[in-house]
């Protein structure tokens, strides 16, 4: 067994980057080199564009990329979840077809899990996939899909068997979004943005090769995707910082980040912008206001939450503590910002301070308690899986899914 040491890896990647990195490459051109060398995703199997490197050594590689300012493989968006899912559950055919274009960033992916009738109850999906003739035919409606209007491929959770119990009748497909049977419609939000979409599936077609894992194993595959989503939620922020250097690859990366991050422009505001509180307190002269005790506590709680989130990896229910904490912080921050704004909280847009950024906080914060698992779900996870309190019976998993009561209208 060859022992891979940190020093060996560092020396190797440093040498390779020094010899190969060139900011004037086209972005795709450079990423193909990364894929070929295995340095783009070193922890992936060497058969599939990696170097079988232990996950613990990946930060070493990342440090070397950062040191020389080299761009990595495409990481922003749903594509990383797609890659992780395909690597774990996909066929070789699927890995051949999809993985490389995920790494180069040429393909855009979206997630098709939530439905109007199944939000918290993700496994309650009623989008129907039926095998007719020689292909799957899909009908239904998905919601909260970011990037669907730009996407090529979707990770689709659908029901294939209504006689089985809820979790057992689900299957997972890769859906071609660009086909006629798929219609994407933006959903306007209370804060004015339209970052999410509804996706209508009307006799959408899926070839048999695009089924991921077995029929009826969809829930297990979905769990993989969701686990990586939770884990990567932090990552969305760090990978999304564009460099200010010059060179063709940097230009193209800036554009890629700009378009991928467009739907998430308001995300810092939905978190409450605790970072702005002290600055605003000074600016408004309210620095001696006793309400700012809450601001300081919010700031320290935010740091504890981040630490809790970090402790939550590798994915455990402890991550729910971090998520619940962020929700409470966001709400507290919104209250503090309201009090700092005074009458300016009556206004929005460029009539309000910081060109409407603070007003945006006030109407974006509600999303933190809902998206990615509501506070109620987090409390259930914490109480049941961390504190091991007895689960409530819901009565929807002990009978064929077709017999489970549900709203008939979406």
């Amino acid at each position, binding site marked *: 067994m060859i022992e891979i040491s940190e020093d060996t890896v560092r020396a190797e990647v440093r040498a390779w980057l020094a010899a190969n990195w060139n900011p004037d490459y086209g972005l795709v051109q450079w990423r193909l080199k990364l894929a070929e060398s295995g340095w783009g995703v070193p922890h992936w199997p060497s058969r599939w564009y990696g170097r079988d490197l232990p996950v613990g050594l990946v930060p070493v590689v990342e440090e070397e990329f950062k040191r020389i300012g080299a761009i990595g493989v495409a990481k922003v968006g749903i594509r990383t979840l797609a890659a992780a899912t395909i690597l774990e559950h996909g066929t070789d055919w699927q890995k051949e077809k999809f993985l490389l274009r995920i790494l180069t960033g040429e393909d855009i992916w979206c997630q098709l899990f939530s439905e109007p009738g199944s939000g918290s109850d993700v496994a309650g999906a009623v989008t129907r996939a039926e095998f007719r003739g020689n292909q799957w035919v899909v009908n239904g409606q998905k919601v909260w899909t970011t990037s669907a209007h730009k996407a090529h491929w979707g990770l689709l959770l659908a029901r294939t068997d209504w006689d089985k119990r809820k979790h057992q009748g689900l299957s997972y497909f890769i859906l071609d979004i660009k086909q006629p049977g798929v219609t994407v419609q933006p959903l306007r*939000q209370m804060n004015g943005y339209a970052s999410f979409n509804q996706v209508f599936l009307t006799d959408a077609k899926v070839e048999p090769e695009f089924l991921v894992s077995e029929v009826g194993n969809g829930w297990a595959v979905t769990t993989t995707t969701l686990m990586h989503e939770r884990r990567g939620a932090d990552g969305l922020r760090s990978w999304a910082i564009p460099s200010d250097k010059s060179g063709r690859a940097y230009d193209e990366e800036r554009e890629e980040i700009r378009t991928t991050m467009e739907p998430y422009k308001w995300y810092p505001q939905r978190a409450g912008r605790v970072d702005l509180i002290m600055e605003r307190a000074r600016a408004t002269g309210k620095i001696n206001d006793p309400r700012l005790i809450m601001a300081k506590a919010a700031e320290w709680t935010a740091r504890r939450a981040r630490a809790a989130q970090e402790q939550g990896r590798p994915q455990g229910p402890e991550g729910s503590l971090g998520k619940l904490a962020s929700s409470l912080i966001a709400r507290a921050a919104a209250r503090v910002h*309201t009090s700092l704004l005074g*009458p300016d*909280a009556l206004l929005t847009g460029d009539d309000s301070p910081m060109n409407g950024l603070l007003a945006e906080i006030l109407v974006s914060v509600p999303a933190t308690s*809902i*998206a990615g698992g509501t506070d109620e779900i987090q409390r259930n996870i914490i109480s049941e899986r961390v504190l091991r309190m007895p689960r409530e019976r*819901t009565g929807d998993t002990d009978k064929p899914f077709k017999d*489970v009561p549900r709203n008939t209208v979406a």
Partner: protein
Amino acid sequence: MKFSFSAEQEEFRSNLRRFLADRSPTKEVRRLMETDEGYERNVWRAINAELGLTAIRIPEPYGGQGFGFGEQCIVLEEMGRALLCAPYFATAVLATGAILNAGTETEKQALLPGLASGETIGALAWVEDNGRWDAEGTTLTATRPDGETVLNGDKTYVVDGHTADLIVVLARAAQGLSLFTVDGNATGLTRRSLKSMDPTRKFARLEFDDVAAIPLGPAGGATAPFARTMIEASVCLANEMVGGADRLREDALAYAMMRMQFGKPIASFQSMKHKQADMLLEVELAKSAAYYAAASLDDGDDDAVANAHLAKACASDAYMQTAIHAVQIHGGIGFTWDNDTHLWFKRAKSSEVLLGDASYHRELMLQKWAA
């Protein structure tokens, strides 16, 4: 009438509720909120004429109906419930209140009939860029260079200031704090609509450049009548707010009863039941405070001022908290534009702050109690 309403008042309320449900469905709210004015004069005139809403607290000799805060606050609560897009608060609470409190007999006779009939849209301009809700922040000046009074300075956050026909203005004259009335179209007056967080309630910034003004009450005598007007406005706003809060609460309950997840209505989960029970308690407490404060004004209680502050503080917290719960209860769709929750959420946010937030009023209430 502190702890219950009379049969007549209840009947008035239910008629008004039905009337507003018919004339101000959410579709109409969304239509009007997109306009610059925020309302349509002829639409508002028709609504007002049917029930004499702007006349309600104006004494009969001036063309009014001669009722008290008890009745006016019923009107406000129902308007808050329906999220009516109309210049009622600016006209019938702020401008009318200032005139009733500060005006001489002659001035009241001149100004109130137009407000009572609904012909005149009114506004009250007092807050300035320093953001103070009380009279101390007044820097706008009233001078008499050629024997006629002119006003110079700026006012902001003026409710319906950009469309009002008659604007009551708080100024500093040589004699001290004074009130004046100004024509909405006066020369030297520049009016700019501000972008409102809550599109159902419009605010304006007013710039006065030698604007001709008519005195309202004796020069230097505005302090007490203005303070009283603020107290009354706080009570009226608190009542409007509890109407909106109750509407949100009811809609959120209806949703929870209908919405199914995990094979059953989300209303059957204990956490949801507890939340709904807490919401009911919070809204009912805020209602009690709002109703009692209105009755205190009508009865001339010694603690009317403290009760007004309590009511506004309570309503600020209750309406905002109810709105936050309402969005949460709806889940993801509660965050969408097409769902109605955000309309009331934004009214809750705006009202939380208008006339001073909860902390501001709690402080004033405690100062009164400690005195």
